């Protein structure tokens, strides 16, 4: 049997602990556990000094105050060096006036990229694709988004997901399609026939027993 030469690493999955790491960043050496107790958005970009990534970093910096209000930290990553990150961040500030306030992992070894499945060889063998991992205060992965190299991310959607996850955790509800804070939320479906009968009498706005909404 031919020896398996390539190491196969499984992709991280929602609901599982986020892979631990210790990595050099533009703010010093950071470990995943340094973020314990906060929500964390770990996101990768293909390379410093590239156009789409620059627009994304400006956009991430713009939503950073909103994220902080929600107890969320940001941590970027690419396979560039710390010096490259520092030079790029300074250039962005000089050219656009936008300060990048969050750290960026310099993953030259690709250890973190590989652990999080951020390199998709079909897109690029040397660069990370545009990944977003939303990690909760217990360091469990709650959301994973992957975007191709050519498509910049949507910050409204990232904020919306954070709001939805935090609403779910606080109120034990789900959120429907296109939900926004203030909209009605979905009551978890009943597990038994008896509960289904009761559900329709509980004053919720119901399409039927399995789809009921309520105001928070």
């Amino acid at each position, binding site marked *: 049997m031919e020896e398996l030469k390539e190491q196969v690493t499984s992709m991280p999955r929602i609901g599982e602990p986020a892979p631990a790491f210790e990595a050099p960043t533009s703010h*010093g*050496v950071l*470990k995943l556990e340094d973020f314990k107790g*906060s929500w964390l958005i770990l996101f990768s970009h293909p390379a410093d000094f590239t156009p789409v990534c620059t627009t994304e970093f400006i956009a991430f910096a713009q939503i950073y105050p909103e994220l902080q209000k929600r107890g969320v930290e940001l941590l970027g990553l690419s396979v560039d060096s710390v010096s490259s990150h520092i030079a790029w961040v300074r250039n962005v500030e000089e050219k656009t006036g936008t300060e990048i306030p969050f750290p960026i992992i310099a993953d030259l070894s690709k250890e973190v990229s590989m652990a999080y499945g951020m390199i998709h060889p079909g897109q690029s063998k040397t660069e990370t694709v545009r990944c977003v991992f939303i990690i909760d205060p217990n360091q469990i992965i709650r959301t994973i988004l992957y975007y191709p190299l050519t498509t910049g991310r949507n910050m409204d959607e990232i904020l919306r997901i954070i709001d939805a996850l935090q609403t779910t955790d606080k109120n034990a509800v789900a959120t429907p399609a296109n939900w926004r804070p203030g909209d009605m939320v979905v009551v978890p479906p009943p597990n038994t026939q008896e509960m289904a009968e009761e559900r329709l009498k509980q004053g919720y706005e119901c399409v039927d027993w399995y789809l009921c909404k309520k105001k928070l």
Partner: protein
Amino acid sequence: MACISPDGKPTESGTKMLRALKSGLGSPEEIAKDAGLPLFRVRSGLRELTGAGLTTEASGKYEITEKGAELVK
């Protein structure tokens, strides 16, 4: 090094952490609040400060050393 410059002196964030510790023992959460720094920065910074002998840690509480206090006189 985020908290200690190559010349061995604490950076601005390192100085804030050491100053926060001058009044006594502190947890990373207390230091973060006092220094006005994000908790993740404080946790990583305390590793550096402790490694450089400027702080010590026991049971999750940090204390400034004589060497650390000397740097933020």
